[in-house]
């Protein structure tokens, strides 16, 4: 084996070992690497009101109710839903059927949000195209709660 070959093997082995170690660490920390929990995750986990957390999903169609400063809406991931109460400024992109991430506490099944962020999907198109797609019934419901 020449020195070049030895160095090549050394670099390849090193990268492989580093990659494997990183993959193991990331898998182990998977739970703390997610930015938010989905409504299904919350149902599964039974988290008490003492822990501050983020809830993410889609704002359910027709669920937004404004009562003065207070806004109530329902976050869904199509499998489960969580009701949210929020008191404050909403981002421009907040609308029914769109993604949302709320930070706050889960109190008796109702999520008390301290902050609400909008999450948009990966689709970009002009308004005319979106309208035409909706009219033709080709609107793909691929918007996931991811």
């Amino acid at each position: 084996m020449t020195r070049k070959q030895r160095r090549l093997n050394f670099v390849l082995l090193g990268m492989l070992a580093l990659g494997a170690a990183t993959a193991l660490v990331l898998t182990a920390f998977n739970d703390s690497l997610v930015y938010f929990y989905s409504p299904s995750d919350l149902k599964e986990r039974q988290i008490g009101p003492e822990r501050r957390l983020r809830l993410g999903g889609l704002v359910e169609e027709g669920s937004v109710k404004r009562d003065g400063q207070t806004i109530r809406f329902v976050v869904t991931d199509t499998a489960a839903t969580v009701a949210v109460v929020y008191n404050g400024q909403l981002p421009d992109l907040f609308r029914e059927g769109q993604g949302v991430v709320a930070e706050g506490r889960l109190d008796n099944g109702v999520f008390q949000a301290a902050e609400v962020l909008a999450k948009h999907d990966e689709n970009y198109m002009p308004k005319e195209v979106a309208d035409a797609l909706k009219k033709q019934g080709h609107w793909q419901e691929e918007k996931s709660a991811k």
Partner: protein
Amino acid sequence: MHRFANPARFLRAAQLVLPWSAGLTVALLAAGLYLGLLGSPADYQQGETVRIMYVHVPSAWMGLFVYSNMAIASAVALIWKHPLADVVAKASAPVGAGFTFVCLVTGALWGKPMWGTWWAWDARLTSMLILLFLYLGHMALVNAFDDPTRGAKAGAVLALAGFVNVPIIKYSVDWWNTLHQPASVTRVGMPAVDPAMLTPLLLMGLAFTTFFVTLLILRVRSELAAAKIRAIRMVQVHGG
């Protein structure tokens, strides 16, 4: 590959490429900016704000592309000891750091009006910030030694070790849920961007690439000139 490891041959080739890459940068940037800022429609959800994409996304691509480039050059330098590979890695780092910085700043400017926040510690944003730190760390490490060859070697090891971050950035939006949306252009099936918006986006991506080639040639050339000056000084000191 081996043929271009010779600095004199590289300089001759660079002399030929430079006017073309510089000219292409100007032409592509003009076309991309015109189409992006004026000649493309507003988004159905985000309105005019979507135009930040034409700078944000290409600079993110370049941040990853330049780092991959730097990691390959570092591997070549470590394994085959090509004198030019170290120079290419050293010359790439500040350019890549610039692209990554532009990506983070435009991302913050885009995030505030759309998401409602400048910054979020989600996997995509955090791993991109780590990329910026890797670039800055590389720049500091390469210049931290009196002997430039030792600095180059330490920098090459850092660049290779940091490469694990590149696939993490790319797939962070698929592996974990994030505030950042998933990939629009490089996804299975059709890109999720309308053709009228995809054209300026790809033009800007090409413009940024030729811009990088231009900067890389200029920086490698000045690095080689600096090395020559060092060599001449050494001869003078030892000869006098």
